């Protein structure tokens, strides 16, 4: 190998430093909360109800998301229609959509003053109310149904075209068709998809903050937040954080045993030609229509309502927007630097690297922002006023939350460069510098752009630690939106939502676009 010993050592130190930082953030904060927590004895009945509700809603949400995704993905896989590709792209949108905006949109459609309630009162029925458990589950399905659908579509796309032909040349009945094609596919994709969504619903905070609450609808994350912000009971927050950490850890161990589906969702454009499309057209169209309406209506409701109110937003929106921008850009730089160091250090280390990437991914998914936030607060508290560090802490926690996704995009790309060009590099005797600057980075430009786009959009939309650490003077756009919702200023909230979505999309677009600019790549 052409690397000098120093280069190798440097690289390992760099990768090791990133790993150490990650461990401090995840395990270190957990230790901090564990030593501060006063055991399970101080948990009240309400806290135990919160634990039960957290597990229950995660189960129902994951089950519904995956269950509805089966017919929707099947319909999308076998029907071809104009706009199909656009619809599949749209399925990726909730991933970078700020959670609080999605919730606001769902309220505009399904809430007490929403479209459906308006229709129901017109028809002589009572208005809907989605606060509490129904709202939490509805929002979780809204965000995770598209994810599950994309996983299943990938499963469909992986079925070889010949296999469909064999089945059709056998004149298989619908039952035989299910057994020969669909069952093996579901068996491969469903357990991982369910587990991943279960984990996402377990650690989701913004949804519970916005529509949860009350004795029946409080999740552990929300209970931590309330213990922290409302009661300022740090030891209770710490005990709850220990419970949350153990639950997530348990699921993470399970997730290590079941292969999780890939979350980047690229390459869904080509699907095998299907011969059974015709007979199921009506049912498929209904599924596709309902799923599309469910996804599109809340977003259009926000746009519809918000655009007219942008001009009379409070002037704080400008400061909030700049704060969000600062946090998002910082967190993107940190996230990409970490992902790149890890990828370059471990990409050519074979199976160990894959386990590492997988481990970091699961660690990132299983780490709850509020546990990390509580832990950091407890670690800083003896020395300084933690609120001062709200911005850097939010940026670094966001970076860590986006890291699994960035790594999923970068790791395979780096590995491909190493397998394709390492021999060439050795035979040309390239130096480390030339190799990195002329070969690796230019070829990584596209995945880097995409990963940075994901990181920036995720951080822009985040409403987690910032809610824990902020004082009234400091707010990001998602936090401002939440506060306006809390004050029932829904028109202004919708206006802020439009600004937030626009800012996220523009940033995503700039990064992703920047990655595509290189002439030499396809």
């Amino acid at each position, binding site marked *: 190998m052409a690397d000098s010993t120093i280069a190798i050592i440097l690289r390992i130190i760099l990768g090791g430093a990133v790993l150490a930082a990650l461990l401090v953030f995840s395990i270190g904060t957990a230790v901090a909360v564990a030593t501060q927590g006063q055991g399970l004895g101080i948990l009240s009945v309400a806290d135990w109800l919160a634990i039960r509700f957290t597990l229950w809603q995660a189960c129902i949400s994951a089950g519904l998301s995956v269950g509805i995704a089966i017919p929707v993905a099947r319909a999308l896989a076998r029907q071809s229609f104009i706009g199909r590709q656009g619809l599949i792209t749209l399925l990726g949108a909730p991933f970078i959509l700020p959670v609080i905006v999605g919730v606001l949109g769902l309220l505009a459609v399904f809430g007490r003053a929403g479209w459906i309630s308006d229709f129901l009162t017109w028809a002589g029925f009572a208005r809907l109310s989605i606060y509490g458990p129904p709202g939490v589950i509805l929002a979780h399905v809204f965000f995770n149904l598209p994810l599950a659908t994309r996983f299943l579509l990938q499963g469909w796309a992986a079925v070889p075209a010949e296999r469909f*032909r064999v089945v059709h040349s*056998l004149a*298989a009945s619908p039952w035989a068709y299910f057994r020969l094609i669909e069952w093996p596919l579901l068996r491969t994709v469903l357990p991982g998809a369910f587990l991943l969504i279960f984990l996402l619903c377990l650690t989701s905070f913004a949804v519970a903050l916005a529509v949860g609450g009350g004795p029946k609808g409080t999740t552990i994350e929300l209970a931590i937040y309330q213990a922290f912000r409302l009661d300022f009971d740090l030891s209770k927050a710490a005990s709850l954080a220990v419970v949350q950490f153990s639950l997530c850890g348990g699921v993470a161990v399970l997730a290590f045993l079941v292969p999780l589906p890939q979350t980047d969702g690229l390459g869904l454009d080509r699907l095998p030609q299907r011969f059974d499309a015709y007979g199921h057209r009506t049912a498929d169209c209904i599924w596709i229509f309902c799923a599309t309406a469910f996804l599109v209506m809340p977003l259009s409701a926000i746009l519809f309502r918000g655009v007219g109110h942008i001009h009379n937003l409070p002037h704080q929106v400008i400061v909030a927007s700049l704060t969000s921008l600062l946090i998002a850009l910082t967190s993107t730089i940190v996230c990409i630097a970490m992902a790149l160091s890890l990828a370059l250090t471990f990409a050519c280390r074979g199976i160990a690297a894959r386990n590492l990437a997988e481990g970091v991914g699961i660690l990132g998914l299983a780490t709850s922002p509020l546990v990390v936030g509580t832990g950091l607060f407890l670690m800083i508290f003896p020395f300084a006023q933690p609120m001062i560090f709200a911005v850097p802490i939010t940026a670094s926690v966001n970076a860590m939350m986006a890291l699994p996704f960035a790594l999923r995009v970068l790791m395979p790309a780096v590995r491909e460069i190493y397998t394709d060009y390492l021999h060439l590099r050795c035979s040309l005797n390239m130096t480390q510098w030339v190799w990195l600057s002329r070969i690796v980075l230019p070829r990584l430009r596209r995945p880097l752009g995409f990963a940075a786009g994901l990181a920036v959009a995720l951080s822009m939309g985040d409403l987690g630690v910032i809610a824990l650490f902020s004082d009234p003077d400091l707010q990001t756009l998602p936090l401002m939106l939440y506060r306006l919702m809390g004050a029932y200023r829904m028109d202004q909230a919708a206006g802020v939502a439009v600004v937030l979505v626009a800012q996220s999309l523009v940033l995503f677009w700039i990064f992703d676009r920047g990655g595509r600019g290189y002439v030499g790549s396809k």
Partner: protein
Amino acid sequence: MLALNKVRFQQGDFVLSADFLVPTGARVAVIGPSGGGKSTFLNGIAGFIAADAGKVLWDGEVMPDHPGRRPLSILFQDNNLFPHLSVMDNVAVGISPDMRLSQAQREKVSAALDQVGLADKSATYPRDLSGGQLGRVGLARVLLRQRPLLLLDEPFSALGPALKDEMLDVLRGILDATATTALMVTHDPKDALAFANQAILVADRCATAPQPIQQLFKAPPPALRAYLGSRT
């Protein structure tokens, strides 16, 4: 007898036309340059692509639209088998896709496996079989289905020379016993000569009527000569 009556198959921008008969019991190699339409031709006969003009007939009757109701079996190069089914079930789907077999059917499946030399592998899964054994399972299914027409889309291209000869022997055994009409797409002139007595040339958006294969190779038309290069 297979009859292609002024047929046109269209796939995207690509159009292929054919107008000829293939006599019952013939062994026909389908040859021609890649991208010339060999697979389109086979998929059209199998019913995966609908003819937008003309008719495909078997023994004087128009073939049904649904591929599963056509009197034929088809074998591809890969993915003929279902990885999650045992060898036994993989063969059994040939007559009962629901895999609910009567005793008589079960015996037939065993007999077919016996005939291709895999009697002891019936409980094995495809991942534990060699390339040659995978091919034999596919052939056992063909044998079991007893359809009068067999379509082969480069079924043995990925196998080494010795294994390929072996598979061709098994195939010949099946065809001899049943008087099946067989069409095999191949890109290897040697395979074509070893297997077939006639050849259909697919080139320039047109499939030509079957001709005796020796004669065709001795005096190749320009399209075939360009394809074969100097290897005649």
